């Protein structure tokens, strides 16, 4: 089988992510604590969500920490930002977009000396596929008062979700513009 062009880049990326996924290291100070969310708790697809990992035994915010993420079957390798929590423990985080169906990820930290340290792999899957279509604002004319009230409530809630995702898209576009211009 011949692998050409853009597929080559894809293939190389997959292999490197896999090699990273498969290796394990150990460093007593670099213990990672992370509590994944449940599938039913995932925000609407495309909206912002954070992945946070806590390092209870260190107080540094400059460690190179990355997340190997497969989101709806597409791989990403993202750097995390460091901060200290209220108990002065290191917390690293990255903002991602909620997937349509599933998300699997693993954190990796590169100590100043020694081998990279990997967390376990976390897998989160929604119990069902959310509807991502834009809200239709048509309200049935022959509905009774109760039905009309319920329908209006449902549509206004869907519109709020549409507004949130469009705002996110516009913000994302601004961030891209800053990088490429």
């Amino acid at each position, binding site marked *: 089988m011949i692998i050409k062009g853009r*597929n080559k880049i894809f293939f190389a990326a997959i292999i490197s992510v*896999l090699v990273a996924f498969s290796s394990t290291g150990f460093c007593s100070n670099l213990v990672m604590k992370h509590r994944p969310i449940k599938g039913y708790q995932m925000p609407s697809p495309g909206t912002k969500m954070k992945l946070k990992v806590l390092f209870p035994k260190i107080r540094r915010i400059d460690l190179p920490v990355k997340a190997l993420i497969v989101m709806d079957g597409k791989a990403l390798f993202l750097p995390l930002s460091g901060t200290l929590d209220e108990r002065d423990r290191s917390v690293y985080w990255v903002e991602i977009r909620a997937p*349509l169906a599933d998300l*699997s990820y693993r954190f990796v930290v590169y100590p100043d000396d020694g081998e990279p340290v990997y967390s376990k792999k976390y897998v989160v899957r929604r119990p069902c596929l959310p*509807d991502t279509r834009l809200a239709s604002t048509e309200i049935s004319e022959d509905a009774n*008062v*109760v039905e009309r009230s319920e329908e209006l409530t449902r549509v206004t809630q869907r*519109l709020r979700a549409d507004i949130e995702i469009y705002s996110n898209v516009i913000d994302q576009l601004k961030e891209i513009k800053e990088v490429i211009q």
Partner: protein
Amino acid sequence: MNRLVYKITLLVFVFFMTVGAYASSGRVEVVVSSGGIKPIKAIGLLISSGGVISKGNAEFRKVKDGVFLVSIPVQKGDVGKDTVATALLLSEDGKASSFGEVVDASSVTGRMARFALPQCKTRKPKSAVEDENIYSNLGNLESLLEIRKVRRDFLKLQLKKAMSGSMLKKLRKIEEGFGLYTGRPLSPDLDPYELSERLFRIYSVIRTK
């Protein structure tokens, strides 16, 4: 009595044999965009740190325009803890699609493909139907709907304006250049979820390069 014990033993044996056979083989399903080609063959790839296993006998079926579900046969020995699966489609003249999604192949049995997940049911909204001022609430809800509709349509327009001309060209070029292209050109008219996901991937790629 002896016969009953014999039957139960046989039943237990058959049960474990069935479970064993089921666990030793299975299928992994991968979603692939055809990227405009007319596929005649699908190749499944099982990738692990130990190497790549190519499965030329993968089955495929169309799920919607330009999107196919490739079903890769997997034997127990093919997958380890770190194995992922992907696939590509080939046309008659040897053209290949991009690689499809990457899925975890380490737990083949019981795995549901994305397309097999049920659609979420619409929840009945909590509304103030018990309120004696329901008619005034209806008026408020109607106003809220109008305000939100106007706000959404305004954001849509704003996006259309921001994502046009040279900016749109650049974005499409980045998608193509980094192998992120999914077969449907980037456009502000796409489903906002798809837009959000694609722009986030573009941003992640250019930020980390």
